[in-house]
């Protein structure tokens, strides 16, 4: 992770050593943007935290696939990013989608996340109870005070 702290205006989500890094640097030079910090994709959680705190003006991704990969992995909640008025910029690939289209995608993701969260809770509670019952019984049966 970079040495980022709060209050960054522009951050890049790209591995510094990745082949795309040179492309991103070239694009930053061409557009006159200064990246305040670079984050590896595995640290995008930290970018999300900064976005929610309102400390990020723009997040630059090498391409749309890089953003969508994080969206599907559940690490980038698009609706929150749009609500924070954070700009999302792509260095290459298909042109940046129309704002309405991106809004629709964010709404859809937010709906999916709500449904998924319900499933996580119901499934998590149910299977956790089964796991706990199994662990309790096995620990109860495995060796007693007289044998240990």
């Amino acid at each position, binding site marked *: 992770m970079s040495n980022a702290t709060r209050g960054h205006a522009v951050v890049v989500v790209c591995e510094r050593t990745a082949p795309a890094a040179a492309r991103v640097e070239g694009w930053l030079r061409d557009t006159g943007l200064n990246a305040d910090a670079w984050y590896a994709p*595995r640290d995008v959680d930290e970018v999300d935290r900064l976005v929610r705190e309102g400390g990020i003006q723009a997040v630059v991704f090498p391409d749309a696939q890089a953003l969508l990969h994080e969206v599907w*992995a*559940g690490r980038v909640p698009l609706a929150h990013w749009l609500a924070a008025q954070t700009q999302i910029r792509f260095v290459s690939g298909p042109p940046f989608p129309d704002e309405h289209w991106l809004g629709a995608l964010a709404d859809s993701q937010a709906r999916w996340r709500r449904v*998924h*969260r319900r*499933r*996580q*809770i119901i*499934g*998590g*509670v*149910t*299977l*956790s109870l*089964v*796991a*706990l019952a*199994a*662990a*309790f019984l*096995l*620990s*109860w049966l*495995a*060796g*007693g*005070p007289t*044998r*240990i």
Partner: protein
Amino acid sequence: MRAVVMFALIPVLAWVGQSLLLRRAGLPVRRRLSARDLPGVVKQWNRAVLYVGVAAVLLGYPVLRGTTPAAYYAQCFPAGPPVRQLLWGVAASTLYLVLLYLAWLITDNIRLEVRHGARRLAQRLAGVPLLAAGVAFVEELLFRGVLLRDLMDSMPAAGALVLASVIFALAHYVRAVKRYWTFPGHLALGGLLCVAYWRTGALWLPIGLHAGGILILAGIRPFIRYVGPAWLVGASIFPYAGLVGLVALGLLTANVWIRFGGTP
């Protein structure tokens, strides 16, 4: 209650040490113990001061009681069959944690995701057994071998168990930390380990439970990411701080209570 006073002096010593080190480094003194944004060398010396404080309590307390450390701690480690309690403890913590992680993996509350490169991962994993054994051994000597034993000498067992659990939990928050909502988890963990000592009169079982827990938590941490609600499954190395984790600690405490025979 001598142990409580000695325990209270550890953070005071650590704070004085931190303040002196910060001054020497030309940095402002902090009101709280905090490692955040400190230069590496200050962090290392801070740690060294803390270790000196812990060692002073571990060695000084038996002397205050008029005995030698070796003779005092030997009573906490009876030889023979009780040694098997260590293995039972490791197995029980492992069983609970592994089954819970499996349940959470199936229900997408955690995801498999390697968090480091191969070299760093190997380094971290290689250190896990030593970390588990070392942390469990030192913390159990300190919190159960010194603190709980001292409290049990001066008050009824129930009061001693509660107070020792509270101090154990508070000790994890003396330094500024990222998460404070994990406090009930530390409290329940303290309760489990105190009950384990109380029921067996030895440190074998608490060390086994503690070491087994750290072994699994630290061993699995580099491979998973929490995606479920923190109130349900916890976060980071604190799965025991979520609702399910608290229930698990309660059940494991019941296991210990049932299986081990009471005060010696």
